[in-house]
């Protein structure tokens, strides 16, 4: 399959200009600060001398093109600057907090896919039934929900009124100890340490923010699944399969769903964009120590290096996720690489 190998190669090559574009935009964002960027990057407490140091460190006295290459060189070395509020290099901060965000995002995605895909399939198969109507209501309501508001509501109901959920502060109730860090994912680390109690506590703490995020992502996935499934089921090849006497299960899942999943996989990219954005809001509501709440704190403290580092990190993460999606798509769909447009 030389065609496919080439297609994958082209897809990989396409990320290069995108990453370059991302770097350019984040460079522009760091230099677009009103007034003197050096003043901003040095922080509120800086004196004349430290501002001068920052100016030289950032190369702000150089021409813009040189500045860009300095910036780029710093990035390659992993130098995103130093956070004023924590005093740590931004990269270290982000690396410390990334697993918390990823754990939340991924569990939310798994939960919403586990609900949305069967729901969308059912709605398509039983078009016009109550499942279909339920799906439509959920989808319309789901995209209307402000995540931060859903989060607050859930906290009120499940923490204040019912008392089922632990207090919405962080990844683990203060009476538990963090599991020894291996992956940074508490769920995995607590299991590795064979500490089921901590695992349970992690799950309880994770439940509300996960549901909040999952509710938000449910809608696009369910809608796309329903639409793709309807399209697949009305295709000619489904009629051929039925006319050949294949069983209902084979027709629906072997032929229908497998074709329907292709467009669903492509929309996952868009869903990731929403999730990563909504993540910031949810982390703030639940005081979740991920990179989103880190950025919010940095915003409040006018810690620009941290904010820009966060934006860049999010973009690179998103580019990587999209790349993974596209590559897995290329593995599922045999037509990739033959598409002569």
């Amino acid at each position: 399959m030389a065609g496919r190998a080439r297609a994958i190669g082209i897809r990989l090559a396409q990320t290069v200009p995108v990453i370059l574009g991302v770097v350019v935009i984040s460079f522009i964002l760091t230099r677009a600060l009103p007034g003197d960027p050096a003043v901003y990057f040095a922080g509120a407490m800086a004196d004349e001398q430290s501002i001068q140091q920052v100016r030289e460190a950032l190369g702000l006295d150089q021409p813009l093109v040189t500045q860009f290459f300095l910036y780029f060189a710093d990035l390659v070395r992993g130098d995103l600057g130093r956070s004023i509020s924590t005093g740590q290099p931004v990269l270290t901060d982000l690396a410390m907090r990334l697993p918390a965000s990823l754990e939340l995002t991924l569990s939310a995605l798994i939960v919403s896919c586990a609900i949305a895909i069967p729901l969308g399939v059912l709605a398509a198969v039983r078009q016009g039934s109550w499942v279909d109507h339920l799906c439509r209501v959920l989808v319309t309501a789901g995209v209307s929900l402000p995540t931060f508001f859903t989060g607050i509501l859930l906290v009120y109901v499940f923490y204040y009124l019912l008392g089922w959920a632990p207090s919405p502060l962080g990844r683990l109730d203060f009476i538990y100890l963090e599991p020894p860090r291996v992956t940074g994912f508490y769920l995995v680390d607590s299991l590795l340490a064979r500490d089921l109690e901590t695992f349970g506590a992690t799950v309880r703490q994770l439940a509300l923010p996960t549901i909040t995020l999952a509710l938000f992502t449910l809608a696009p996935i369910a809608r796309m699944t329903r639409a793709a499934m309807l399209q697949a089921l009305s295709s000619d090849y489904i009629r051929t399969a039925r006319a050949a006497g294949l069983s209902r299960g084979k027709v629906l899942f072997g032929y229908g769903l497998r074709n329907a999943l292709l467009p669903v996989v492509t929309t996952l990219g868009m869903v990731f964009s929403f999730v990563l954005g909504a993540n910031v809001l949810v982390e703030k509501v639940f005081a979740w120590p991920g990179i989103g709440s880190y950025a919010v704190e940095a915003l409040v403290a006018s810690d620009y290096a941290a904010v820009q580092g966060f934006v860049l990190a999010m973009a690179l993460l998103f580019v990587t996720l999209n790349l993974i999606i596209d590559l897995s798509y290329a593995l599922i769909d045999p037509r990739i690489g033959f598409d002569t447009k």
Partner: protein
Amino acid sequence: MLHISDLSVSFRTRRGEVEAVRGISFDLAAGETLGIVGESGSGKSVTSYALMRILDAGGRIKAGSAVFDGRDLAQAAERDMQRVRGREISMIFQNPRAALNPIRKVGHQLEDVLRRHGRATRSNARAKAIEALEAVRIRDARARYDAYPFELSGGMCQRVVFAIALACGPRLLIADEPTTGLDITTQKAVMDLVRDLTRDRGMSSILITHDLGLAAQYCDRLAVMKDGQIVETGAASALFADPQHPYTRKLVDATPRPGASLRDLLPAEVRTPLADHEPGTRPLVQVRDLVKIFPSKSGPVHAVKGISFTIREGQSVGLVGESGCGKSTTSSMLVRLLDRTSGDILFDGFDIAGVPADKFVRDARRSQIQMVFQDATDSLNPRHSARQTIADPILRMSDLRGAALTARVEELATLCGLPLPLLDRFPHQLSGGQKARVGIARAIALDPKFLILDEPTAALDVSIQAVVLNLLADLRARLGMTYLFVSHDLNVVRLLCDHVIVMQGGEIVEQGPAAQVMEAPSHPYTQTLLSAAPKPPAARPSLLKSAAE
């Protein structure tokens, strides 16, 4: 073997229940081939889906029975139907490429069916699937086993669909428009294969088609459907020779066939004498060494390879060939929508190919060269009423405004047989034939000298095709236009044209007076095209007489 009585099928729609099939009855004997013929919306496909019980959501068999081998299919349980489908009765469809699962190897799709019906086990499925592919005369079946549908040609896909249908040795094959969208030579190959294999196996078959000529050639008996009812049944030759029902007669008349003239296509009541058509001698369009090369990823594609021809004033020239032969590229260059790579197009002695297509809009000759498009629906702006559509060229390229404009638009509509009240309708509110008339009215709005007709009737039902072809002939006589008629259908071209150009692979393989090319083709490709075209049986004696005159 199959006995259908009073079968009715209805669909739930927003506007209540609609009956698509209304109480039809027919029988099919073992080994017999029945053709169900009808125009779009006649309910012919729905009949076949009802037999297989694979109606779309909302459709149901309302009444009647379909007894196959002593079992009523209309009443059978879904479980039993799954055993009937593919094993007892199977089906092939139009648009073969879409009829195959796009992301599954064709061999695996065959195995699915074989194993479902217990004709193969896991261990011998592959061998059996390859056998099934070989049975439909696919060469190199072993390699095709691993192919995906998108890697195969349309004709090849239809063979695979056919292999799936035959794999479990059914006794009845239903073919639903199996060759629509295929080239005429491929159509013949597929139809011959279907006929031979069903005959060899002693199978019965039902061919569903809009093409009366095709059905007559391949079927023992025909049933003509209209508005959900069968209006007439009979042996193919008898039906042609002496149609009983007025609708059958209209359909038989409208089917282009050797020996019939344009007016013969119309119902006898409305046949008026055709004006004499005498082409002039002065050349209007001269094409010299026209070449078009498209760049593409896999190197340049030579779509048109240096063709030359002359169209004289008042002449009607047919440009014939199968898909990909370069006829559409040629017509796009002539109408100045596409730039040529090299060569000249002299219009009235002036090289219009020298004016880039982008600039030609402002050329004085723009209004002289117009085109009627293939798909009447696609060629009308959905947001413009018929009046706006017809007025557009007048507004852009003449000074007529106000009352004069309105009068001109209405004159054009009348000329093209479009009732004036329809002028304020949008395309979706018009029928196929009416849309074709709007498209023609727009093309002739500025009295062009040269009109290119790009398969103007390909998307129309045969009875409407007859009317539109006659309209075009009348307009030619009245306005003295010169036509270039682009088509894949030699039978249609013969009716309207006095000169024929046959293209293959970007080259002209034969050209000459229509009668000569049709009666005594010199190039083997023209001979193939002619022999592949369906040949309806001889029509009524009255028709033969009028043709002899």
